[in-house]
């Protein structure tokens, strides 16, 4: 259909707009796939990818017969899923609340302030966090004033490490994520609100019956898209905040790959873990897509 329409209107040049997208995909996603070959090889940097001997699934059998891999997968899932959930809920709530603010100047100001952290790198934020959360950092000084005796070592605690990862990630990104929802909210027909007002709806009821349903499609779309990163628990963040004590709860697939690959000079194992990660992600995306189409009627094709 689309094709026919385009031919009729002579709109082939629109296809040109695909070029940057395809190029990006080729550079960052398709070409690197050849590197996955390493996962099936006894990789030898001297011979390179094309001449190293193949060993079948040896690397994978090692990965699957290894406690660390499973621990790391568990950590990754817990951290990534918590980040996804809170990373959805908080911006939506924030957008709904900000949408109720009538004072434009204040609204703009708040919006600007909350999306700024998005532009800071984790290296910087981690440096600040380490100071704030240290034994004689701000947070502990405050707790001491409240009567807590022993300083809490937040970054060295297996109880606190994951909440800190999730919390700081949400703090960094929620302002930026809320932009989309705010945009979706402005698309809702104002006459709906006016009609609701005539019927005597309260603010909460307006949110419940008009705003929320109005942005459902956007929410489902973004939720589905975010699933592609379900195993990306955030290398930058974990790597910068990480220390040996929190390994049992904080070690994620990406840091594990990094450790095995670059610190232990074992490239083929690292690639195998990476491929394993991609395979799991692939399955999760399909599942999520099916769920989205069944329960929210969302379909791409």
């Amino acid at each position, binding site marked *: 259909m689309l094709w026919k329409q385009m031919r009729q209107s*002579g709109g*082939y*040049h629109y*296809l*040109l707009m*695909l*070029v940057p997208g*395809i*190029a990006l995909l*080729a*550079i960052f996603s*398709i*070409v*690197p796939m*050849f*590197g996955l070959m390493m996962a099936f090889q006894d990789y*030898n*940097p*001297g*011979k*390179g*990818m*094309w*001449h190293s001997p193949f060993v079948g699934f040896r690397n994978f059998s*090692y990965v699957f017969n*290894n*406690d*660390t891999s499973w621990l790391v997968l568990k950590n990754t899932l817990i951290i990534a899923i918590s980040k996804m959930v809170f990373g959805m809920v908080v911006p939506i709530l924030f957008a709904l609340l900000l949408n109720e603010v009538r004072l434009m100047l204040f609204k703009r100001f708040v919006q600007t302030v909350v999306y700024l952290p998005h532009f800071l790198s984790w290296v910087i934020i981690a440096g600040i966090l*380490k100071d704030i959360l*240290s*034994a*004689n950092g701000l947070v502990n000084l405050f707790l001491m004033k409240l009567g807590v005796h022993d*300083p809490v*070592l937040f*970054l*060295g605690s297996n109880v606190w490490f994951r909440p800190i990862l999730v919390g700081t990630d949400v703090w960094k990104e929620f302002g930026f994520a809320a932009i989309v929802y705010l945009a979706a909210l402005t698309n809702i027909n104002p006459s709906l609100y006016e009609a609701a007002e005539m019927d005597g709806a309260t603010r909460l009821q307006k949110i419940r019956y008009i705003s929320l349903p109005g942005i459902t499609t956007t929410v489902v779309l973004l939720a589905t898209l975010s699933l592609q990163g379900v195993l990306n628990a955030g290398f930058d963040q974990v790597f910068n905040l990480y*220390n*040996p*004590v929190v*390994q*049992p709860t904080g070690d994620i697939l990406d840091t594990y790959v990094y*450790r*095995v*690959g*670059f*610190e*232990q*000079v*074992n*490239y083929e*194992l690292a690639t195998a873990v990476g491929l394993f990660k991609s395979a799991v992600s692939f399955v999760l995306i399909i599942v999520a897509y099916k769920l989205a189409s069944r329960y929210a009627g969302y379909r791409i094709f």
Partner: protein
Amino acid sequence: MTSKRRTAVSLALACSLALTLTACGNSNDGNDSKGNASNGKTTNTADNTAANSQNNAASADPMAPYKDTVEYTTVRSISQDPKFPEGQSYEKNDWQDYVEKTLNVKGKMLWMAPSDGDQYAKKLSLDVASNHLPDIFYIEGQNAISMLNTLVDSELIEDLTPYYDKYASQKVKDRYSANPYAFTTSDFGGKRMALPYGMEKEQPMLVWVREDWRKKLNLPEPKTIDDIRKISMAFTTQDPDGNKKNDTLGLVAQSNSMYSPSFDLHTLDSIYWSENAFPATWEKNADGKVQYGGIQPEAKKALGILRDMYKEGSIDKEYGLKDGGKTTEDVSSGRAGMVFEAWYAPYYPLGNTINNDPHAEWKAYALLSEDGKLNVGSSPTPGGFVVVRKGFEHPELAIQLMNLSTEFADKSIPELKPVYEKYDKAVTVAVAKHAQYVDLSIADPAAIYNQQKKYDDILAGKADESILLENEKGGLDQIKAEMKTPLETVLAGNPDKDTLSAAISNHIGYLAYMNAMNVVTKNESNIVVTPNVYSGQTATMKTKWTDLQTLQKQAYLKIILGSESLDSFDKFVNDWKAKGGDQITQEIQAELDKHN
């Protein structure tokens, strides 16, 4: 028609882009010449041998310049704050100029990375993975041995045997042969694949204490672990710096590397060693069989002590969170009162404390075991290796650069005297004192011991200065300057900036030699070395060693930080054995039997 052509163009564009990239991706294939500008063309070994034999025939003199300028690429690790003289840097300095002029070579530094942490090793690992190797480079850091094994297995580096025999200067050869362990890790089946460096005669870890704090709080000098615990506690709780704030620390240590196979900064080695525990060492037991130090009862005992220390607060509360960079920061900023490091600690980083607060005083003590031994558990692993990329046309250049660096370190080139003075005046940090792209001087393993004995003799009037080598004079000058006008006196006189920094530099030298090295030489007869008998990589180690190391580190940390009981050590030992430890031990035993 037009639109069809446009489509074709856009498709072609996309395809060509994709193709170029694939082509780039392929450049890993075989011996890559892209990353190595010096080659200009792809080389093969046959060509090299021809080129080399020609060169060999032309110059038998190890130091003779090349006829045509030879270009080479390299990478290096650098000190964060090297304090170069005005206008000089790692990339542009008098030493490098001298090297290039003397040998008619042209070096190109591809990148530099800080030597703190494992940043250099990690960056280098990326280069190896993509086979973009510099021509000459060093391997160092915690993964040095596995990296060397990978490079040899992958046939990425040259066999240096013939070049070493032909080009190494007599001095370099003599110094290597003074060390019985010199080539144990770098010779592979009779082939000298790498040249180790940084192998000194065993260096005990010393206990460094903030002496001004200790005196202020009226504490005794530390002799036993109990003394250390008391002092550390007092430093943490009794406000030794007198600023009425609870902001000081006692003993600081890093947990990123918890016990060192080589000399990592600020580990807890002294405590392990004083309990005869060697957690990272393959040692020989009473029957002459190999065993891993990390699973022995002595390690459990040491962990028990560390656990108590952490509980009572005589080890920094944030021990589990710190790496060497963080402890260095603690020490430099003057927050820390105690640290374990070898004799050279005043040069880095303890000197920073004094630079920041000239009234700070450090003093070194030896922590002996109960039976009076000063244990050392890390010799003889080298600090690193220098290797040459396979296919580089002039492997001998690495050895020539080594010859030159050794002369630099010995200060035996008269022509360079003004440069030495310039660098001394700039208070350059020791590691950048003779900076060039490839900087690996080979020292006599016992040099520092011998030097100290000479200083003692001279100061006692038993000998005169003529017994000193050129490079040993600077240290004595510093000692004498400090003895004549001690830092205290200078400080009292309201000095200007230059006078003060010169005085601090003298004071640092004095501390390193007259305090720390003297502690070492006085205890020389007590020093007992537990050598690491195996530092290669067996087949099982290749897949399982990472996990076993993680297991050990986690088990130790949990015990020290108190989240598991001390008896969980026994469970760890069983786990360790079951998860490949026993098999690795057997493989190592077999390996050792083969050579005996």
